């Protein structure tokens, strides 16, 4: 647990007008146990506490803190509760749980960049269409079907193929089954579920390469 904080201010200093109330309040809030603060009505916003608390009260509280040694961490249970209350629930996109299909853990990870409609999921054997960009770990783009000029996108079709039949690399076959129409995701596929030991030298994929795809599932049959 934390070592006892130092008693910086002497009584004279405390009484002095040079020392503002909020400094004392801050110190006590930083170092006292939750229950102590509660009892001395020192919880909450420093400005508000400064309005309601008198300096004499603060000086007394300060002294009592060092006498009772009811510092932070001396009452573990309530500390944790306090910390939990303080934690905000973040809205970060979590990594989707990937389905474990036969043969051990999945060898890819998926981060959803944009949610799909969550209703139209492709089934094995159906035709899907997607836009994609594939990069190596070092950032080299080895393949994409998204034309460079935006206007050309009207003239180009997304890639269409039947899913779940081993026609594409396994990482795609497995990952796309977990995606819904409209979903835009980032896939990191380990080489075992991509091109493995051989790689695909003609397409600039070296051996044992982990592949990263940004894939947008445009249509499901």
């Amino acid at each position: 647990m934390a070592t006892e904080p130092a008693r910086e201010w002497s009584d004279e200093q405390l009484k002095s007008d040079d020392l503002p109330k909020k400094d004392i309040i801050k110190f006590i809030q930083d170092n006292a146990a939750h229950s102590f603060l509660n009892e001395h009505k020192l919880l909450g916003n420093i400005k508000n506490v400064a309005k309601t608390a008198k300096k004499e009260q603060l000086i007394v509280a300060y002294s009592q803190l060092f006498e009772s040694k009811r510092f932070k961490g001396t009452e573990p249970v309530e500390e944790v509760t306090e910390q939990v209350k303080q934690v905000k629930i973040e809205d970060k996109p979590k990594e989707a749980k990937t389905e474990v299909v036969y043969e051990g853990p999945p060898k890819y990870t998926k981060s959803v960049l944009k949610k799909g409609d969550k209703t139209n999921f492709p089934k094995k054997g159906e035709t899907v269409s997607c836009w994609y960009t594939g990069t190596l770990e070092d950032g080299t783009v080895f393949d994409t079907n998204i034309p460079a000029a935006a206007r050309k996108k009207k003239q180009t079709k997304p890639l269409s193929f039947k899913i779940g039949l081993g026609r594409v690399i396994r990482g795609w076959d497995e990952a796309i089954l977990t995606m819904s129409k409209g979903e835009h995701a980032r896939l990191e596929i380990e080489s075992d579920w991509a091109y493995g030991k051989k790689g695909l030298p003609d397409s600039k994929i070296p051996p044992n390469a982990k592949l990263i795809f940004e894939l947008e599932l445009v249509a499901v049959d």
Partner: protein
Amino acid sequence: MKTETDVCEETPTMDEDQVNSVIQRWRDTPEEDLKPEDYEQFRSLGSACLAENGAARILRFIEDEKNQQLMVSMGHTLVAPLVNEVVKKEKCPHHCQAALTHLTRICRPDELLHSLLQIIQDVHPTVISETIITVVPLFQTVLLELEERRAASVGLVLSALLDQLVRLPVPHTEQQEVDDEFGLCHCCEVLAQFVKCLTEDVKRKDDDDEMRAELLQFCLRTLRELLLEAELKQDRKLSPLWLFATEIMFYCPTLQATLVVVKASVSELLFYGSLRKSQCKESRACLAYLLFVQLITVDSFPAVFSPVFVLQCNMEYISQLLSSKKESHLLKGLALCAKSLENVQDNRLPVSLLELPTFYSAPQNLRRILTDCPMQHLRKSALHVFQLFIDKLDVEAKHKFFRCMLKTSSHAGVEGYIVKNIRNQVEFSMEPANGNKWFLGEEFLWLLALVLCVPQAAETDLLNSMDRIMESLNLLRYLVIRDKEPWSKTGVWAELCRIKDEYLKMLRVCIGLSRGYYSAELNALREDQKLKAREARDAARCGRLVSGMTVKHEKVSNMSPEVQRQVLQSALVTFDLMESLIFRIDEITAENLKIPT
């Protein structure tokens, strides 16, 4: 039909005035009143003029304001003579070219088209490339002017051009390409430009499906009738044929797009193509070769398909190419097969793939090349690909494939090769991590029974089957050396031994019979030689000619006695070899029995 000579006879030597008056008459006649004889006379006048170095005069005549109306009606008849002049290259072609250019501007496109098509269809074989080079720019101008039925006309033109182009010999070596003796390369350059111009036009107009279809047909025909014959090498990237192939590869996806303005992909053409008609298979096979082996446009090919799927799709094309008897096709088929297999990991292909017709026909075609093809480099290449194919099959698939090959190949060399592979596979399977029932269990017995069979029993020609028998004996020797231990889990050792013993028993019988026969042959040969030697000595003593040779055996051979003797001797050596292997196998078996288990 009046010929030039007829006209000349009618007007033997038309002087300047007569010519001028005829021309004036034509100028004054309305077009609908002009007769076929008039057209013919105009044409022959033009020809005659050109024959007399009158190209400049013709040009002036054509460009003359006064003659414009005449040119519109009759000018197209001059196209053939002018083109012939250009092709001959004897006199200066500039005037003729200029004249032709002018004509293409003022004459009616459909009439010009007809004239040009006639020229190309009647072209003399010796001037094919010169003619093509001359007429293509003219076609280009004319076709772009055509309002109606342009697509159909384009189709006609391209078809006619290609009909002539494929008559030209295709260069094979780099030197031949550089020399371009028959002009094929130059023609390809010119055609590429032409098609590019038409394709650009089509790209601009979204709805011309008919034109797209015609251009696509041309590309496909080029692929199967021209490029399939050519030898394209990556290190000859600047060769006109390579560049031509590249252009065609670029056009195909663009042209395959249909109603919606959408650029189809080569992968769609190859893997999902709606062009499933048989005539297109050769074209698509060529496309697959250019893409996967020569890597033309490979950067725009999606790098997401699984190698097994790519192999599966390509197998159709591989089988197609390997069924041909032409070297250029076989080379391409072998290269495509090797390339497709190399990307697949070893032991990966499942037995279900062997159910596909193409996965049956392609290896059979390979086998046929191995046994029948007269070109050694192709046989060598085919063997390499054959082994590569075997390596990629998984254990169960290998088992099935070996059984299939043993049943269908009827060739001792191929069978021997398969047996060697079986031995390797058994060895592989004996390693602890690789145990499997296909080469270590009951399933293996089926295979072994197929290997260790003597189909014609006692009448087997051992020499003919030598390769197979030696490999089989090698396999048996390997098995007995390893003894029963690897088979203990599957409990098939006893049965294995039974199969082995029956085989060896039969083999011994065959060897005995064969040896007897060949020994008898050898003795007879020796006796015959002794007899002949004695006769020769007698004849030499008496100075008499030996009349005729007594032929003692049924077999009349062209070989000299010495060669015959060597052949018979080597046959006996072979039997000894076989027997010694059998003996060795028996020896090891006996040793194993002695060692307590």
